C-alpha cells in the first residue's frame, strides 16, 4: 500500500517537472524571431531533403546540382545573396509537417525546396498551401501535388509518378504485346505508376490479365513470380526502385522468366542498380524523362561540370535538382530579386523555358513539367537511350488541377 503511494508521489512529481519543462519550451517557441527585410538582405532557401538513410545520396545529389545551377547563375538569385537552411527529413512522413512548419514559420524561409519521398511531400504540400510560401519539388512524384492539391505557389521540376510509365503503354502495344500482368509495391508511387501504364496500354487495345501487389518494401517475390509464370502473359509491367528493384531483377532471372516474358517498367527499375544485378537486366527496356547518355551539348556540359565539382556522376535526381535551381534563378531574375512580388515571380516561373540536361521543357498549367519521355535499353552497365517514347507529355493532364486565378 505504502509502495503504491510512493509510486503515485513519484509519478506526480515527474508530471509536474514534465509540465514545467513543456511550458518553458512552449514559451520559447512564442518568442519573436528576427524579422527579415524583404527587399534587401539574403534570400533564405529552406532545403528539406533526406540527407541520411536510404535516400540520403539522392538528397545530397539534388542539393549539389541545385547549388551548381545557382553557381552558374553567378552565385546569386536576382542579384541577392543566398542563405541555405538545410534540414534532414529522414524520409519520415510522421515528422514531415513539423519539419516543414519549422522551416516556414520558425526559420521564415523565402522558398521551401524538397523532397524525395512522396509521403513526406504530402506534409510539405499541406504547409505550402496553408502558408503560401513558394515551394519547389525536386523529386517526389505524388500526383496530388499537381492535381487535386495543386496551388499557384507549388512547382515541380521532376515528374508525376504516372508520367514516365504512360508512354510504355503504347510502346508495349507497338511491340506486339497483347496482354500484361502488372506487379508493384502497393504505395503511392507504385499505384500511380501502374495506373499510368494501364491507362495508355488499355487505350491502345491492350488487355490487363491481372494486377499483383505486395506491401512496400516487401521483397518476397517467389510466390508472385510463380503466379506470373502460371498466367503466361506476353509482358509484365512492374514498379520497383533501388535495392528492391535489384533483388527483383535477380529473382526474375533466377525464376527463368528472363527472355520468355517481356519485362517492362519505368526507368527507376534499372537506374542505379545495374552494377548490383550483373547481366540480369540485359536488354530490358524502360521509359524515363532522362537518360545518362543523352547526346546533347547541354547534357554533356552538365555531366562534366557536376562530376568536376562534386567528384560523383549525376543521375536523374541531380538533373531535377539542377532544374529547380534554373527555375528559381529565372523567376528571381524576372522580379529583380524582389521576392515579395509573388504574383510576378509565379508568372515568370510559369512562362520560362528550362534549358535542362534532359532537353528543353516548360511548366504545365498544373506546374508539372511538360517533357519528353525517353526510351532506354539496358546494354551492359548502361541505360542506353534508344529513342523518344513520347514528346512533350503533359500527364496527368493539367485539367485535373483546378488552380484559382493568380
Amino acid at each position, binding site marked *: 500500500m505504502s509502495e503504491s503511494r510512493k509510486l503515485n508521489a513519484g509519478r506526480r512529481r515527474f508530471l509536474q517537472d514534465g509540465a514545467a519543462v513543456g511550458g518553458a519550451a512552449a514559451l520559447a517557441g512564442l518568442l519573436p524571431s528576427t524579422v527579415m527585410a524583404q527587399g534587401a538582405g539574403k534570400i533564405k532557401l529552406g532545403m528539406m531533403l533526406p540527407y541520411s538513410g536510404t535516400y540520403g545520396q539522392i538528397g545530397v545529389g539534388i542539393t549539389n546540382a541545385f547549388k551548381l545551377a545557382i553557381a552558374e547563375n553567378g552565385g546569386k538569385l536576382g542579384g541577392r545573396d543566398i542563405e541555405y537552411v538545410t534540414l534532414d527529413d529522414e524520409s519520415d512522413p510522421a515528422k514531415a509537417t513539423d519539419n516543414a512548419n519549422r522551416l516556414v514559420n520558425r526559420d521564415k524561409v523565402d522558398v521551401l525546396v524538397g523532397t524525395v519521398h512522396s509521403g513526406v511531400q504530402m506534409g510539405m504540400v499541406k504547409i505550402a498551401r496553408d502558408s503560401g510560401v513558394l515551394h519547389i519539388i525536386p523529386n517526389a512524384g505524388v500526383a496530388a501535388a499537381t492535381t487535386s492539391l495543386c496551388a499557384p505557389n507549388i512547382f515541380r521540376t521532376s515528374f508525376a509518378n504516372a508520367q514516365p510509365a504512360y508512354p510504355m503503354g503504347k510502346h508495349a502495344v507497338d511491340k506486339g504485346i497483347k496482354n500484361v500482368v502488372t506487379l508493384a509495391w502497393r504505395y503511392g508511387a507504385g499505384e500511380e505508376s501502374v495506373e499510368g501504364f494501364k491507362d495508355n496500354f488499355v487505350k491502345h487495345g491492350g488487355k490487363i490479365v491481372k494486377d499483383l501487389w505486395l506491401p512496400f518494401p516487401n*521483397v518476397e517475390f517467389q*510466390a508472385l513470380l510463380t*503466379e506470373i509464370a*502460371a498466367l503466361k502473359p506476353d509482358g509484365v509491367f512492374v514498379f520497383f526502385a*533501388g*535495392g*528492391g528493384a535489384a*533483388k527483383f531483377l535477380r529473382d526474375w532471372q533466377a525464376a527463368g522468366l528472363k527472355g520468355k516474358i517481356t519485362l517492362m517498367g519505368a526507368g527507376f527499375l534499372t537506374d542505379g542498380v545495374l552494377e*548490383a544485378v550483373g547481366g540480369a537486366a540485359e536488354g530490358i527496356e524502360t521509359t524515363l524523362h532522362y537518360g545518362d547518355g543523352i547526346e546533347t551539348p547541354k547534357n554533356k556540359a552538365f555531366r562534366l561540370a557536376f562530376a568536376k565539382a562534386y567528384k560523383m556522376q549525376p543521375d536523374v535526381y541531380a538533373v531535377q535538382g539542377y532544374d529547380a535551381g534554373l527555375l528559381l534563378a529565372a523567376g528571381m531574375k524576372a522580379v529583380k530579386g524582389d521576392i515579395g512580388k509573388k504574383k510576378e515571380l509565379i508568372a515568370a516561373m510559369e512562362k520560362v523555358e528550362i534549358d535542362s540536361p534532359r532537353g528543353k521543357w516548360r511548366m504545365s498549367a498544373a506546374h508539372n513539367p511538360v517533357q519528353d519521355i525517353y526510351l532506354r535499353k539496358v546494354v551492359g552497365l548502361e541505360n542506353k537511350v534508344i529513342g523518344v517514347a513520347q514528346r512533350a507529355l503533359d500527364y496527368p493532364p493539367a485539367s485535373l488541377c483546378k488552380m484559382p486565378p493568380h
Partner: protein
Amino acid sequence: MSFETFLIQLLNGVQYGLLLFLVASGLTLVFGIMGVINLAHGSFYMVGAYLAWSLSERFGNLWAAIAVGVVLAVLLGMLLEWLLIKKLYTRDHLYQVLLTYGLILVFEELRSVIWADDVHGVQVPPC
C-alpha cells in the same frame, strides 16, 4: 490454378515456412532449456543477416562472411548474456519480456544507424 502451379506454390510455402521454423526453433530452445523468453530473438536473426551481407561485401566471399559472421554473432550473444540476461534467470518472465522488448527497439535503431534502411541482397555463390 493448375495442379502443377499448386504444387509449386505449395513448395514455395513449405520453403518459406522452413525458414521461419529455423528462427522459431532457436527461440523455443532458449525458452525450453534456459527458461528465458527472448523477444529479441528476431533481432539476433536480423543481426546475423546484416552481418552476412556486409561481410560478404567486404570479403567478396560468402563462406568467409559466414565463418566470421558466426563468430561475431556468438560474441554478441555472449556479451548480451553476461551484461543483461544473466540477471534475469531467477526473475519473473515478465521482466525478461520487458527487457528483451527494449532490446528489440534498440537493435532496430542501431541497425538503421549502422546499415541504413535500404533493401539488400546477398549473392548466392555459383555452383
